[in-house]
Each structure stands twice: as C-alpha cells, then as structure tokens.
C-alpha cells in the first residue's frame, strides 16, 4: 500500500479511541436531562385551529422598528429560530428591540388532511397578520418568511400588499427548476397524487428520509462516526442533542397542501410561470412593491442560491437587495456568529 498506511497498531489505536469516546458519550448522556429548546419567553396572543401566533416582547421596544411577523415553513418546527439560548435568532432580534410575532403552524393530524394552500396562506396567515395589526396597533407589519415560509410570504404579499410594509425572504425557494435544485429534481417523477392517496397526511419521517437522501454519506455514515465526538462534553452534547431533536421533530404535512406545493411549485414551477392560483386568485408577484431583502446561504444544499436569487426582477419593488451568508440552510440561523449578523440585517431592514 503506497497511499494508505493503515497498519495493525494504528487501526487498533483508532478503534480504541472510537470505542472509548462511545463510553465517554454514554457517561455524558447519563448526566444530561432531556434537552430544552425554544426557551425564550413568549405569549400566545392568538389561536386558530392548531395555529398559534406567539408574541416575543423585547425588554425595550425600539419604536423605529416595524413589528415583524415571522412565517416559518410547514416542514419542521419554528423553534429552530430559538434552538438554545446561545443559538437563538429570536433572542438576538429581541436584544435589538425588535417585537416579533411568530406563526407556529402546529402539528397537523388526520382531521387536517384537507387543509390546502388557500387555508394556510389566505386564512391562517391572514388571520395572524390581522391579529398582529390589532395587537401592535399598526396598519402595516414587516413580514419575514423562512424557506417554504418565504414562498408563502411572497404569495401572501402579492395578494395583500396593503398589509405589508417590508418583506424579508430567507433561504427561500422561488425558481424550482434551476439546474442545481437537487430536491426538485428528485421529486420530478414522483406521483404526488398517489403519495397523498397512500398516506393522507405525508409523514414527517418520510420527508426527513428524502432530505437525508440529498447527502446520504455525509448525513449517514460520516455523521454517525463523528457522533461520539459531538457527545464528548456536556456543552457540545446539548448543542448536538438540540439540533437532533429539531431535525427529527418533523410534523406530518397536511395532504392537500403538500399535493399543491409539490405539484404547483416543485413540479410545474407555477410561481415563475405566472400561472399559480391560490384560493381562486392568480399570484402576480408584480403586485409586490415593498422593499425586499432576499437573504440566502451559499452552502445551502436544500434550497440552492440560484433558486432564491431568481426573485430579482420578478416584483415591482424599487428597493430589492440581496445578502449572502457563507453558511448552510440551517447554519445561517443557528451559528452564533451568523445569527448576530442576520439579526442586524433584519433589524436594519425593519427600521423606518
């Protein structure tokens, strides 16, 4: 062997180190209680079916900041924005005096099987925006959408431009047919009608497996090999466990909404083709003339920058700006370094 120097002694040493780390991890896990996520205090100020609007109040509100509605994706849970006290975009925003109204979609069950995009965008989202307007006693709010929530925010703003003052999209898919949009390519020939017929609500675990299939080795073999190291100390273990909890805490997807999102956006790219109809209304992005800040991550393997950047020129906004973070789809929110910068960008955009 010229290029692989793995002698018996080195291998034995490596196995021992790996297995010792496993036992050390066990010792660490034994001492740790169940991890807590989403610890920043909030009040539920409005509830509609399973949807909650959570208000996060800063110690001191900066009056120059427009109240901000945050719309997360239906996939996964919004506490990723408040994962641990050290990894909290929400806390970073509160520290800057930003009042936040977070839409929590909840966990759909069998009774929600027929919820569609009309229900989510025109009914629930609108009800949350109205509740925010009432609570904040303003006539317009800022809207920030994350990932699929960003796509929803674009549709919502196009239909209700008078209610939105400023818009921010973060790691948001806009063009679903770009060359490097792997997820979109994977589902190209999937029979979505059959999937919904089979499962009703699409199990969250099924989506997780699909996401993992994008980087099978990195998110499989390599991650498992690195796991004992990630669990070797209490502080690294808490971060790792919090992230793992969030990754596998994936709500089932309401069948009809899933069907529409996959067919209309992923498979037929209707938002770009200007043929998207929600609740009998055509979505015309040209109706959006609000200032738009479009933020994306250069290492995003779920929503490639090319898909987010496609927003440029699709609206009538005279103040469209982009920011790029050298991070991944999740790292942009949970990395302590990035979330401070991200919070500064957001409050900068919300300031009058």
């Amino acid at each position, binding site marked *: 062997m010229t290029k692989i120097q793995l002698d018996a002694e080195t291998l034995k040493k*490596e196995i021992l180190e790996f*297995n010792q780390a496993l*036992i050390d991890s*066990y010792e660490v896990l034994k001492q740790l209680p169940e991890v807590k996520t989403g610890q920043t205090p909030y009040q539920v100020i409005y509830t509609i079916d399973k949807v909650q609007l959570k208000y996060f109040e800063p110690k001191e509100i900066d009056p120059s900041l427009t109240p901000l509605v945050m719309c997360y994706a239906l996939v996964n849970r919004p506490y990723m924005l408040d994962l641990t006290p050290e990894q909290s975009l929400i806390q970073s925003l509160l520290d800057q005096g930003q009042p936040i109204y977070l839409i929590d979609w909840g966990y759909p069950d069998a009774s929600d099987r027929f919820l569609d995009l009309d229900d989510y965008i025109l009914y629930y989202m609108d009800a949350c925006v109205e509740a925010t307007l009432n609570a904040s006693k303003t006539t317009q709010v800022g809207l920030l959408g994350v990932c699929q929530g960003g796509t929803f925010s674009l549709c919502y703003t196009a239909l209700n431009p008078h209610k939105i003052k400023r818009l921010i999209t973060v790691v948001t898919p806009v063009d679903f047919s770009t060359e490097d949009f792997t997820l979109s390519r994977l589902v190209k020939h999937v029979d979505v009608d059959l999937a919904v017929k089979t499962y009703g609500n699409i199990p969250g675990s099924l989506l997780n497996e699909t996401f993992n299939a994008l980087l099978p*080795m990195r998110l499989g073999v390599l991650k*498992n090999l690195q796991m004992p190291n990630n*669990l070797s100390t209490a502080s690294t273990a808490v971060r790792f466990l919090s992230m793992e909890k969030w990754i596998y805490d994936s709500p089932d997807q309401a069948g009809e909404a899933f069907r529409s999102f996959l067919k209309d956006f992923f498979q037929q790219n209707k938002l770009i083709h200007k043929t998207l109809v929600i609740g009998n209304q055509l979505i015309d992005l040209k109706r959006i003339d609000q200032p738009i800040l479009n933020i994306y991550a250069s290492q995003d393997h779920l929503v490639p920058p090319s898909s987010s950047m496609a927003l440029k020129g699709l609206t009538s906004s005279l103040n469209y700006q982009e920011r790029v973070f050298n991070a991944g789809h999740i790292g942009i929110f949970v990395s302590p370094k990035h979330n401070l910068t991200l919070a500064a960008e957001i409050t900068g955009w919300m300031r009058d």
Partner: protein
Amino acid sequence: MTDDLHTLIQQWLTMQQQGTASSDDPLLDWSRLMARLQQSSWEYLPEQHAELISLMTQESIEFTRFASQLILQSHAFQDTHDFVRGFKQHISQLSRDWILKRWQIPEQLHALIHTSQLTFQGLGEQPLLQGLNTLLESNTEHLTLKQQRLIREGTQLLYEYQIAFGQYSELFDQINQSAIKDLTDTLDSAPEPINSLKDLHEAWTQAYEKEYASVVATEHYQTTYGQISNASFALRAFYQTSRNEQLAQIGIASETSLSLAFEHIHSLRKQVRQLQKELSLIPELQRSLTELRSEIDQLRNNSND
C-alpha cells in the same frame, strides 16, 4: 447499562490500551460487549439519549468489525487497489442496508418475509421474481373471483416494486463503483497518504458525493427514483385499501370513511368562512344603501323644488 457491564467495558478498554489483553482476536469480544450493551435497559434515560446510544453502539460494532477485518488482512494488501476492493465490500453492505431501510415495504409484507424462508436481500434477486411470476400465472380456482383479483393485483404490484427496487439498487452499485474509482484516483494522486480510518471515510464521502451529485442530476436517476417511490406507494396503498375493504365488510369504520367525513367538514368550514365573509360585508352594504337612499331622496327633493 448495568454497573457491571460498564466496569467490564472500561476494564476491556484499559487492557487494550495497556496492551495486556490475552486474546489473539480481542476486538471480537468488543462486539459481544456491545451486543450486551444494546440489550441493556435504558428506561431511566430520555428517549432521545437512549436512541442515540443504541445507534452509536451499532456503529461501534460495524466500525470495529470493519477495522478488525482490516487488521487481520493488513499484511495481505499489496497496493491501494487491493485495499480499495475490501473497502468496496464494506461500502456495498452499508448501501444495501440503507436502501432496504429507505424503501421499506408495507408492514404486513415485511412480517410475511420476516417469518418465511425469504430474505430481504432476495427482494432484488431473480429467483424471487421468478417465484412471483409463477404465482401470477398459478391456478387459483378454489378462491372467489374477488380473492383471485386481489392476489393478482397484489402480486403484480410486488413484482413492479421488485423491478423498481432492483433498478434503483443497480444505480447505487454504479455510483459506488464510480466513487470507488474516484477514491482510488484521489488516493493515487494525493501528496500525503491516508493513515486513519476517519480520514479514509472523509475521503470516501467526498468521492461519493461528487459522483452521487452527478448521477442525481441525470434523467435516468430521477426516473428510477420516481419509479421506486411510486411502486412503494402503490404497494402500500393496495394493502391499505384491502384492509379498509375488510374492515368495511365487518362494519368497522375505516380511515376511508373517516377521511370522507373530514373532507365534508373541511368543505363545510370553507362555506361557513365564505358566508362569514359575505355577512361581514352586509353592514357596509347597508351603510352604502342608506347613503344612496338619502342621496336619491335629496335628488328627489331637489327636483321637486
């Protein structure tokens, strides 16, 4: 894990570190210890912690098994290619396990295979396909027409699933082969040799993902992925439909009837919402009407004047 087992594992690690272990092949004992560890009761730990321990233990068994095998064979490796061949077998096994886990068949069928002479590996092999073909063509006169139809339909779907599964596995074999070649080339041209299994796995991951990304981008992969997804859905849907029909026959409400009820409720809620929206407009319409009336009255009065 009991304290006894923990002590035993620690002792084993210490002995190995000090080189005082007596067995010629001590790493095999580790697998036994880990097997015992996996059987331990973790009830006092949070579920997430227990699951991670179980996963890591499994990983440790596989990692130790692979490394032990390398130790035994290390003297036999003449060159990089020789080594890579062994690594390929290890990776192929991991891939197969992953594919089987990813595209699970319906639970009922899973149980059937589990309790029969068949193996999951057999899902991609010809003898099982031939067996299914025979079943498709077999004489089932003693069954009712409906039963015959169900058997034919179910077998046909399983057959289609198998074909799709085989094609999908084949693609993964191709990805593995290309990635192995890429890894070999990388190793041959690397300035520094690989001297740890972790580095080897990292190099493998990079080679694999490069190859995987290029294959995923092809129409062939996307079609194959669609086929395995759809075949898997169809098989599951068939079993669910059959179960629901059986439940209906004995008068038990199935998810089909529940789903129908939810659909009606959803539709009614939309109608109510629409009515509420229209009702909310009534006060405004009344105001407009009153204003119009007063304007008309005003106009009338003006014209009378």
